[in-house]
């Protein structure tokens, strides 16, 4: 039994060998391709021990390993994705060897072609919207309350106003999202990021991914520019991303909530 596995980063079309020069994946391993016709699985070796079932379960609890693996996966996908049509695979997809990858590629050829056709000429953009702080109600409680009752009254009012501000932010975010959705060919909702993870104190009210035709990216930028001074919300666009959120088979798409 070999002590290495084949880790698959993405499935691409017409990969230019020169693009693989010096490209390193997880564990600093060189990246190569396993090809079937025009399709290419972008792969590297991976330590078997590192990816054995129990090992992986443990490692997934290890944030540093998870972050390093995610970064390495992204580096490969993002680097190749700039010049190639590709569909990234989910994190940590491994096979026993290259022959197994070749078999999967052969068996699922039509599926991959379908996924790639849908992604051609399109890029993913993240749309994240936060409720602005410091709107109405921000002054409540700033001055020292004269009494406990006064303090409680102000606090209740601040909470009410906070709720209203959040509702208004959600509404404004939904409007922005509708406008962006109109530019997109597909859209998907991601979970809202916890403030501890997003690194911002403003509550997130929307986290979406939009698959946008490359030629319309300028319109998206222009739209977002007009929102810079919005009183209720702060809008953040990330990307262009390799279309992670939209690299799915038709079946998976239908199953999606």
């Amino acid at each position, binding site marked *: 039994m070999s002590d290495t596995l084949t880790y698959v980063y993405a499935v691409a079309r017409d990969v230019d060998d020169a693009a693989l020069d010096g490209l390193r994946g997880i564990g600093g391993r060189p990246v190569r391709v396993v090809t079937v016709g025009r399709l290419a699985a972008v792969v590297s070796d991976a330590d078997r021990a590192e*990816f054995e079932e129990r090992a992986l379960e443990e490692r997934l609890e290890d944030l540093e390993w998870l972050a390093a693996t995610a*970064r390495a996966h992204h580096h490969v996908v993002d680097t190749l994705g700039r010049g190639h049509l590709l569909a990234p695979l*989910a994190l940590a997809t491994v096979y026993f060897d290259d022959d197994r990858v070749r078999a999967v590629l052969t068996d699922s050829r039509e599926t991959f072609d379908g996924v790639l056709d849908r992604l051609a000429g399109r890029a993913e953009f993240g749309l994240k919207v936060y409720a602005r702080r410091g709107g109405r109600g921000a002054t409540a409680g700033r001055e020292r309350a004269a009494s406990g009752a006064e303090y409680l009254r102000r606090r209740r009012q601040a909470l009410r106003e906070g709720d209203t501000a959040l509702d208004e932010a959600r509404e404004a975010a939904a409007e922005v999202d509708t406008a962006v959705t109109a530019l997109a060919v597909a859209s998907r909702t991601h979970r809202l990021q916890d403030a501890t*993870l997003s690194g911002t104190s403003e509550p997130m009210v929307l986290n979406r991914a939009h698959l946008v035709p490359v030629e319309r990216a300028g319109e998206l930028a222009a739209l977002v520019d007009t929102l810079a001074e919005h009183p209720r919300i702060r809008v953040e666009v990330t990307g262009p991303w390799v279309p992670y959120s939209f690299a799915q088979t038709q079946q998976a798409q239908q199953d999606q909530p």
Partner: protein
Amino acid sequence: MTEPESFELTPRATSLFGDEEVALVDLLDRLLAGGVVLVGDLTISLAGVDLVRISLRALITSIAPVERPGTRGGTQRSGAAASEAVTARAERADRELEPGDG
């Protein structure tokens, strides 16, 4: 290989760890809930919900600091209470990630 001009849209998210151009949290949104899901040879294709749950728990428990005094009704939390709060948050995240709830 140059990027098309239309890709000159460069607002970058604030990063969890500050120094990388792509925020890890945005990357994990995509890597754990996206990408083509294939059944690999080892049954470690935890991609999707399970992986998200595990990783999110790891993220939360490793990053979440003690609740700041005053953020939850002003009660000062002891270390034990704080870790309970973190656990509760991880469990809430679990619930939010139940299939069909996404």
